[in-house]
């Protein structure tokens, strides 16, 4: 469980990025944090593994205050996948990259070898085992970064903008993968402004604007609250936009997903 209590954070250059954020993330939840560029999303999740410590307020991970704990220790529980994989990758082969953290955590050779094989297989990277990460495409590098985090089996996986630069099919693979992780009991936190991706996943959605949380709830409530979305610089999903234009026909307006849209419309219009 992650508990964030009235957290404020000011960067050394004087920018106040978080202005009193409180939230609780229970084990096994799937959360999307959305909001405009510069809203404080990345700053917030960097508090989950202690990369940043609050200027004021507290963050507790499984009851442990991050203020008194090292990143190395917190990272065992909370894995962080950066927006740009190039900030994360540095080894000569994909295999070494994925093994790096495991070795640092002090796993035995037999154990880390097994885990590397498992993680590479999971993300479809086995054929690149001996390849340099920098020879891979952007999408593949993102998967290496993810594999290197999953390898040490953290309870919480936090991903910063995982869909940027990914095409539609890669996003669909990512979506299924996240759902699989979540089903296995992992807590998944995704920072994103990709509203169509979130609409297809339908997780708990937290909207941020100017360092504060402005909405927090289930996807089909938050993503259909136009005023709050606008405040957070987000456009409603296209399916929602369609149903908002049909509201006077007595159809629901909290629809975000195309399959639900299909059911509602076929019920009303009838099948061929």
């Amino acid at each position, binding site marked *: 469980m992650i508990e964030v209590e009235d957290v404020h954070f000011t960067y050394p250059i004087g920018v106040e990025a978080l202005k009193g954020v409180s939230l609780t993330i229970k084990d096994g939840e799937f959360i999307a944090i959305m909001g405009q*560029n510069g809203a404080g999303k990345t700053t917030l999740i960097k508090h989950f593994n202690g990369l940043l410590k609050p200027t004021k307020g507290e963050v507790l991970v499984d009851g442990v205050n991050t203020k008194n704990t090292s990143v190395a220790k917190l990272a065992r529980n909370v894995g962080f996948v950066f927006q740009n994989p190039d900030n994360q990758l540095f080894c000569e082969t994909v295999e070494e990259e994925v093994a790096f953290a495991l070795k640092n955590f002090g796993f035995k050779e037999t154990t880390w070898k097994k885990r590397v094989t498992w993680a590479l297989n999971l993300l479809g990277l086995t054929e690149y085992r001996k390849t340099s990460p920098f020879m891979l495409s952007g999408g593949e590098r993102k998967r290496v970064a993810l594999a290197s985090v999953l390898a040490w089996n953290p309870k919480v996986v936090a991903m910063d903008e995982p869909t940027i630069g*990914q095409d539609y099919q890669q996003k*669909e693979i990512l979506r299924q993968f996240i759902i699989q992780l979540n089903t296995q009991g992992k807590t998944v936190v995704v920072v994103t402004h990709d509203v169509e991706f979130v609409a297809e996943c339908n997780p708990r959605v937290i909207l941020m604007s100017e360092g504060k949380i402005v909405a927090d709830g289930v996807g089909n409530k938050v993503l259909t609250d136009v005023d709050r979305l606008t405040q957070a*610089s987000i456009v409603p999903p296209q399916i929602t936009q*369609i149903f908002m234009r049909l509201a006077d026909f007595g159809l629901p307006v909290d629809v975000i997903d195309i399959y639900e849209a299909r059911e509602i419309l076929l019920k009303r219009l*009838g099948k061929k």
Partner: protein
Amino acid sequence: MAVIKAKGLTYTYPNATKPAIQEISLKIEKGEFVILTGPSGCGKTTLCRCLNGLIPHFYQGDLEGEIQVVGLDVADTPIHKLASHVGLVFQNPENQLFALSVEKDVAFGLENLGVPREKMRKQVDWALEIAGIYDLRERAPHELSGGQQQRVTIASIIAMHPEIMVLDEPTSFLDPLGAQKIFKVIDELNKSLGMTVILVEHRLDLAARYANHVIVMDKGEIVLDGDPRTVLNSQKARLLGVGIPKATRLYQILKEENGLSTEKVPVTADEIAVLLREVLKT
């Protein structure tokens, strides 16, 4: 009049074993708004680089076939000459900005082209105005938000009055409202100035409404090329995993299961809503 013409264009990067694009033939008319899409690694960026001469002049490698831009043969025209006709905006604005003020960044291209001072001032002010960043002209680009930075790169390109603007996923780092604003600026340039636009984009939910020509690439080849409604409604686009707009996808589902049908295939929320309102009334 075709401003871009390619025939049998094949290009292989130095030391690569197979071509990044092959047998590309296309024609883009003056004033078109083209969306270029397709799975990652399909050769979109490589094709863009052929349009302003980065290929073959900077990247070298092996270029076969023909490509002409505003009547100039790319292989025989130096980059600086092509740059005054074709502006290229990249995905990440940070890679493109470097000056100490927005104004200087926007003026840089013109300085390099040797434009006289008075004319330069006029063109810079005009570009800042169009991109909606006139008030930011004295700020440092690196202090700005991602959306503002992307508008600076667009201003620095349009200041040179290119006939063709090529944008490689210009909004992928931006939040949806920021992205929408950029698309509107581009649309305005296209509609009011007749600038030819080539936009590389995956997020067709947001962008499809502006285009009048869609090209889909896969594995280095052009696999679909035509008007947006036909291309986005094709089964091939769906099977390739092109992110077709939800409005179009919903229409396809309802057409198949309910028999809903119209000649003008919807590509926006507005269009399908109008259609649905008609059938809901009866």
